[in-house]
């Protein structure tokens, strides 16, 4: 609520600033706009930016540092905290204090220290918000005054505005990059914590996965086992089945669309294929779980085979359908990028269409097609929803597509769903799985994009 009011106030001031700057600029040259260095609106932007940007920067700084400052102040008011207490303990104390401050009841409501801390917290919050409001408004008004003071016929408002735009764009890119680095960093950090508890080799080469950790120490199997081999084997099995579906179907349909279809058929067919890419994966998920899996099971029974109701085959088939558009649209692009001259060369020697396709066009387009298949593979490996709905939960080490297997993504979901402690190996295992998955898909993507780019160069 308060944030909204601040935002509106600043926007309003910036708006006023725009008109002030503009009219002031026009007034300084008494209406002869050509005497101005820049267009009148540039002066408007100039003052509006002076008004808005410092306030915005202040706001961002506040949001970044306020929690830290408040937390430190509150904690300094709570005596006898063990200086070596883990971050989890401190976090719990803080969250208790905040809960108490917000609701007046809760853990520690009968502890005077906690109650005092809660009051301290509320007080700090109120003071902080009020001073922020004052500071923001003051900054805006100050900016407005300074900005409009500087407006004059000689002010190079256009260049200054352009310069600022450059900074804004740079800031956006930096945010995007930093976020990515942050995500990867936290993945790495948590994974390292996990490897502190479970040896790296046990994780990568262990054949047994049962991450359930008993609540009481004396229970059977109190120690979970974290061998990820069955999980990655399951991921590979399902992805392999998916590629077995997607590569032939996608490639052949790309060949048809690019070489055989008349422009009319192409105009209808290509968007239809691309609609497949727009279906939410959860819909594929039901389709796999409710239609394909029972059908496969039914078939299997008719042949006397033992088919699990969550077979790898069902999940893989549906995932294959999902990635057909990746394979087909990328292959279509590279096939169409093969120069017409090569086709003409083959036709002129008496090659038929299919001979031309198999002996000239596909070999020429092969690197690009391989790149497309690798992108599709990385998509399949990271895919979550279909396998959560249609693949199994138990980690089976098997190559039989009729049995249930599990995948890395499914395990991450099950490890993190529900109430979790954030420092048990069970939870941290999800980060380790995520890290491995990230590395695999990253490598696939990098190699694939390079292959595709290299191929593009060749014909440009």
């Amino acid at each position: 609520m308060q944030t909204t009011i601040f935002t509106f106030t600043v926007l309003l001031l910036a708006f006023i600033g725009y008109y002030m700057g503009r009219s002031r600029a026009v007034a300084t040259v008494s209406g002869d706009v050509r005497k101005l260095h820049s267009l009148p609106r540039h002066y408007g932007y100039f003052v509006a930016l002076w008004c808005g940007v410092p306030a915005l920067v202040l706001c961002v700084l506040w949001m970044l540092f306020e929690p830290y400052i408040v937390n430190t102040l509150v904690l300094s008011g709570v005596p006898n905290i063990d200086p070596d207490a883990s971050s989890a303990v401190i976090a719990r104390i803080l969250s208790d204090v905040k809960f108490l401050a917000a609701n007046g009841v809760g853990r520690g409501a009968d502890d005077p220290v906690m109650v005092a801390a809660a009051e301290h917290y509320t007080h700090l919050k109120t003071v902080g918000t009020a001073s922020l409001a004052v500071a923001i408004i003051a900054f805006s008004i100050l900016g407005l005054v300074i900005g409009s003071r500087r407006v004059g016929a000689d002010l190079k408002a256009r260049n200054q505005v352009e310069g600022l735009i450059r900074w804004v764009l740079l800031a956006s890119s930096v945010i995007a990059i930093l976020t990515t680095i942050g995500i990867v960093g936290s993945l790495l950090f948590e994974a390292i914590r996990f490897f502190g508890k479970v040896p790296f080799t046990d994780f990568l080469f262990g054949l047994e996965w049962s991450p359930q950790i008993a609540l009481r120490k004396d229970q059977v199997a109190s120690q979970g086992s974290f061998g990820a081999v069955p999980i990655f084997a399951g991921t590979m099995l399902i992805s392999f089945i998916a590629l077995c579906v997607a590569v032939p179907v996608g490639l052949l349909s790309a060949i048809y669309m690019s070489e055989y279809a008349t422009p009319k058929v192409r105009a209808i067919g290509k968007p239809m294929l691309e609609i497949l890419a727009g279906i939410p994966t959860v819909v594929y998920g039901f389709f796999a779980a409710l239609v394909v899996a029972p059908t496969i099971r039914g078939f299997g029974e008719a042949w006397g085979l033992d088919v699990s109701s969550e077979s790898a085959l069902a999940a893989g088939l549906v995932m294959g359908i999902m990635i057909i558009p990746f394979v087909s649209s990328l292959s279509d692009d590279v096939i169409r990028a093969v120069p017409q001259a090569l086709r003409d060369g083959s036709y002129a020697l008496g090659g038929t269409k299919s001979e031309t396709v198999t002996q000239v066009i596909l070999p020429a387009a092969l690197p690009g097609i391989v790149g497309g298949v690798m992108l599709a593979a990385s998509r399949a490996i990271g895919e979550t929803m279909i396998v959560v709905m249609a693949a199994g939960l138990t980690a089976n080490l098997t190559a039989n597509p009729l049995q249930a297997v599990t995948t890395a993504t499914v395990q991450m979901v099950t490890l993190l769903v529900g109430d979790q402690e954030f420092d048990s190996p069970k939870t941290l295992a999800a980060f380790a799985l995520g890290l491995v998955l990230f590395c695999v898909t990253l490598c696939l993507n990098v190699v694939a994009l390079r292959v595709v780019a290299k191929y593009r160069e060749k014909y440009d």
Partner: protein
Amino acid sequence: MKPMTKENAIDIDKSVDINNEMTNPQVSSLQIPAEEVKIKAEDVRVRYGEKEALFGINLDIPQSKVTSFIGPSGCGKSTFLRCLNRMNDTIDGCSVTGNIHMDGVDILSKQVDTVLLRAKIGMVFQKPNPFPKSIYDNVAYGPRLHGLGNSKSDMDEIVETSLEKVGLLKEVKDRLLEPGTGLSGGQQQRLCIARAIAVDPEILLMDEPCSALDPIATAKIEELIDELRGSYTIVIVTHSMQQAARVSQQTAFFHLGNLVEYGETEQIFTSPQDERTKGYITGRFG
């Protein structure tokens, strides 16, 4: 003879209109004895969709000689050349009417198998277009399509003689298995010629074969054309009048979809009959 259908009738009506507007009767000073005519084109008309590109071409191409087509860009030289091996079939919306006889066989008829036809009529394109395969496989591509050279040694021989004929053998002898795209432009173009003659055609069509090459590579190709002349009937489209004068015995001048003038090369370049030919040759337009 074609039956007179309604469609034909409309075509002819239109063409009469156009003829009235923009064409003079064509000048042809050439008398080729009937037994030496390799290709006989009569009233060849081509349209791309609604757009007409050729308005009735009549042309006899003699055997074992070089015939060049000259004319400003867009006048239909390539289009006519592509009629001769039915490459226009591969272009959507392109329709060809009229008659083209090769050794007395109507090659525009539906019964003609384009695969066999194109084995007899090789084509070389403006930009060298070797396949992204080895030099050997480039040359062997055509023979393999047509089931020639069944044994390895036969195929080796075909490849070697074809490369020899274009003077490329000694240059690439040690790297037959390296990609054809790694050769220089001129070598690539000679490779494309080798590829075309590997299926032992009777006719070679060349569409501006030197326009992407430097003068030295061009000179080599011209020399090669001269050598090949005895064994093949060659039709070459060129933008360079010097080239036409150097390599060809007959020259046809095309203008805006019409064949304006056709005659002995020497005569076309020294004493053209038509004003437009004269204008083009002396560089007043084109």
